[in-house]
């Protein structure tokens, strides 16, 4: 997808932590702003972000209005077996996004 970037090492050592970085393009509209006519702009932030490894949730965030636009997340994981990381998120408007990154464990 064009609206996100993910950075994961393709080869990792078994049992050793590795860094996962993901950057998502999203306006993260707070719901506190008005448009030019004084009408309130409805909140639209990414509500949930989940990272799964071979289907099993390993990292999740519940986001709110306090997050800046274009959230950038960085966390560490450990892997026992080769597999695939999947990232999924949903915003208030119901728009979904996803990314995937295969990992081979040595």
């Amino acid at each position, binding site marked *: 997808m064009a*609206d996100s*970037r993910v950075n994961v090492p393709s080869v990792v050592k078994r049992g050793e932590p590795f860094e996962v970085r993901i*950057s998502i393009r999203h306006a993260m509209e707070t719901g506190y702003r008005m448009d030019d006519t004084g009408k309130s702009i409805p909140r639209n932030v990414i509500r949930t972000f989940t990272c799964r490894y071979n289907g099993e949730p390993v990292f999740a965030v519940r986001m709110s209005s306090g997050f800046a636009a274009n959230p950038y997340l960085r966390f560490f994981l450990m892997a026992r077996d080769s597999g695939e990381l999947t990232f999924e998120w949903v915003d208030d408007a119901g728009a979904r996004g996803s990314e995937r990154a295969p990992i081979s464990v040595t």
Partner: protein
Amino acid sequence: MPRALAALLLLLVPLMLGGASVHAQRRALPLASLRSGITFAGPDVQAMQADAFANPGLLWVERGKTLWNAVGATGPACAACHEQSGMQRVATHYPRWDAAARRVVDLEDRINACRTGRQHAPPWARGSDELVSMTTYVANQSRGEPMAVVIDPAARPAFERARAFYYQRHGQMNISCAQCHEQHWGKHLLRETLSQGHPTAFPAYRLEWQAVGSLQRRLRACLFGIRAEMPPEGDPLLTELELFLAWRAEGLPVETPGVRR
């Protein structure tokens, strides 16, 4: 007598040409003293720009790349023509004089000319997500290359208009671009450090916008700041000002997508 006149003219021509080049080289900021806007930013902003992954402007580069490869309904993808040649260093030569259009065009204009002329598609609106993303993608391929615009003789009047605008006082606050960016750069305006006002980061991710925006959007923000009239994006005045700024920044590397407060 006519012969003497001819001799006089022959003498004058090189003098006039020489005069023109001296004029072109009259710089308020000598090339050796030029400093990119990033050197005036805090270490956090510098780190954000330098990070090859976390720089949020790269999300716009990705978007531009997708658009670059997308085949339109009415014409070929950008990639169909430009596949081999690449876009390296292209951004360092813009804005430039367009002999066919008989005006100064910037990178956005050039992209839209391709869109209408080659792809037979409607031009993207100034400031639209598509145009900003595509400009960011194209300019990103000149990252690190020094600015090198050429002032075509035909563009000279436009260039001089822009130079005059730069040194003229504007707006309710009655200040010129030069007063901040040539006479007082490095000093503080409230908690901001005044930069030399170079355009090399643009299109840039501005934290205030929480998005990537064009140079013309930034120029409009400057005009808003001094409470001057703001021409709409795409106005020839702003495009010509871009040319003057690009000439002023000669030799500074392109940083697109830069990160700025």
